[in-house]
């Protein structure tokens, strides 16, 4: 089964790659030992969004479905976590609230995905229908300021945002600070490796086959709609995981994390990083989040202008993504001249070139 960690659908194979992986992981695990708690909290904050990026990478890069609805499911699970945590009374129940809110996001994705995929919506329209749904949810939550908008004791609270839910808690222990950071790192490792295995599995084969040529895939006996729905639900569930963790991290969520410009952010991260590879998305998204946060301290608008400029620059200059392109160059330059590696990298280069043309 661990064979599936490497395969034609993911870059990075062999000892060298996994040594790098272990080194980065070791660095991440030892970071709280020599950083202050503010730094650790900040890092945990960047990591929240990685799930959303990986989910979009799966849907868009592997499945060929460009969803603009990542923040829709982020919001559903984020608000869902808040409502459930408040109603279930905090404590260890917050773990259940987290799981349930992600399930809620996946159910919502299942329903929306069913109508779109069985309705034959693809390409551009997939994007604008998901974005419309996202904006409508943001508008709806924006006008729930009145006291009549509540679910149990949980007030939705319009643009001021919902607050008062407990963070993730085990017994009496609040999962905050370094503990939350370690949870986040562990979840990312699990999700990253699980996605690698998924895309290199038989299911992953069908997912990329559907991206390449849905009719041919159907002619091989696959009901491509089911695979598309599965991809959409997993990708949206990951966005939901980000949302629930976000609410737990800050005990707070507002409609502005759903609507514009928030909805554009996952697209920027994944496009800039290189949508066709999970590792590139992981690395690139982290870098962008880090940079974004650094600039936001001075001016959020300036940071967003930069994000817009990066998106424009990516599609104009490197449609396959900057991080992926640089990673390829570096890998080629650094070594890996073994016969099998050379063949593989040739295949990859050809794949990129045919993508560009």
């Amino acid at each position: 089964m661990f064979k599936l960690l490497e395969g034609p659908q993911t870059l990075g194979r062999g000892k060298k790659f996994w040594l790098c992986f272990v080194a980065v992981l070791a660095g991440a695990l030892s970071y709280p030992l020599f950083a202050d708690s503010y730094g650790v909290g900040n890092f945990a904050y960047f990591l929240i969004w990685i799930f959303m990026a990986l989910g979009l990478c799966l849907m868009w890069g592997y499945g060929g479905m460009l969803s603009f609805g990542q923040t829709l499911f982020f919001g559903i699970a984020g608000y869902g976590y808040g409502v459930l945590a408040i109603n279930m009374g905090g404590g260890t129940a917050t773990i259940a609230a987290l799981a349930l809110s992600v399930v809620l996001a996946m159910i919502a994705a299942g329903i929306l995905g069913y109508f779109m995929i069985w309705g034959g919506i693809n390409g551009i329209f997939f994007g604008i229908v998901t974005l419309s749904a996202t904006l409508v949810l943001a508008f709806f939550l924006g006008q729930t300021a009145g006291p009549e908008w509540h679910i149990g004791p949980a007030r939705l609270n319009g643009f001021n945002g919902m607050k008062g839910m407990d963070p993730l808690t085990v017994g009496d222990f609040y999962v905050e600070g370094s503990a939350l950071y370690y949870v986040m790192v562990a979840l990312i490792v699990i999700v990253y490796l699980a996605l690698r295995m998924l895309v290199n599995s038989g299911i992953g084969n069908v997912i990329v086959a559907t991206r390449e040529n849905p009719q041919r895939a159907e002619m091989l006996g696959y009901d491509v709609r089911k695979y598309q729905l599965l991809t959409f639900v997993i990708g949206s569930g990951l966005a939901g995981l980000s949302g629930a963790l976000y609410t737990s991290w800050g005990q707070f969520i507002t409609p502005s994390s759903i609507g514009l410009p928030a909805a554009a952010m996952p697209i920027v991260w994944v496009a800039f990083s290189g949508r066709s590879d999970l590792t590139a998305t992981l690395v690139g998204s982290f870098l962008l989040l880090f940079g974004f946060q650094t600039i936001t301290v001075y001016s959020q608008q300036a940071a967003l202008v930069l994000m817009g400029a990066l998106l424009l620059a990516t599609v104009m200059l490197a449609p396959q993504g900057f991080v992926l392109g640089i990673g390829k160059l570096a890998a080629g330059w650094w070594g890996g001249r073994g016969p099998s590696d050379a063949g593989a990298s040739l295949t990859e280069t050809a794949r990129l070139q045919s993508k560009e043309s």
Partner: protein
Amino acid sequence: MSAEVFSLFYQFADVFAFLILSAAGLAIVFGMMGVINMAHGEFIMCGAYVTVGLVNLGVPLAIAQILAAVTAGLIGVLVEFLVVRRFYKRPLDSLLATWGLSLIVTQSMLLIVGSAVRGIGTPEGSFAIGDYTFSTYRLVLFGCAVAVLAGLYIIFMKTRFGVIARATMQNAAMAKALGARTGRIYAISFGIGTGLAGLCGALYAPTMTLIPTMGATFVVESFVTVVIGGANVLLGTAPAAVFLAMIRMALNASYGQIIGQIGMLVAVIVIIRVLPEGLSSVLVRRGR
């Protein structure tokens, strides 16, 4: 009784005008070039700001509105030349590029202009039928929406440009082989599309608060109208707007704006499942 009937018509006309004015520009660009202009809302915003700026300088409202639409159209031609033109073979990338543009424009506006701009207030004028009072300006907006549809009909069905444009729409390579300057036609069509967006902003500027993010208020309506209307502005967008306006009107009246919007979205999602090729496919098939 007639007052009630007129009131119903008035509500319908109000929503219909909003849908047509916000969607027409987007639909033309999509129909002609297969491109969804994600910066559509920003062209609307541009129209609104130019209008208000000119009115504050003392230009009469109607003239300011026309100038605003022309400005948005010219900026559109420039954007087509600099950005959109590269992406005609990559429609998804054109979506991303224009979205990047949209982010740059809104956030820069927030940086430069800030969030508050002095509005100009809705032109007064109202009239009463029975116990109901109606705003004259809302009827003017409806008139403008009908005029836009009529104008598009004339441009695309009766002019030389329209013939070439429709030929390009059908088969760009063939039109090019027959001597049509497709590049120029695309630029002009994109300009007409963004000009209509600017007109929409100009017309609604007196009725709303001006903020750089106001474009987002229009995009859901324009998206869903284009999604079910498909690529044909005259045969798709207009009937789609009639259909959505009825749903919207019914829900607005009893449950308020936001439920109206949610209802419209749900209707669209159900329609794409039932009629995968959009409303216009049914109409076109019937037409044959």
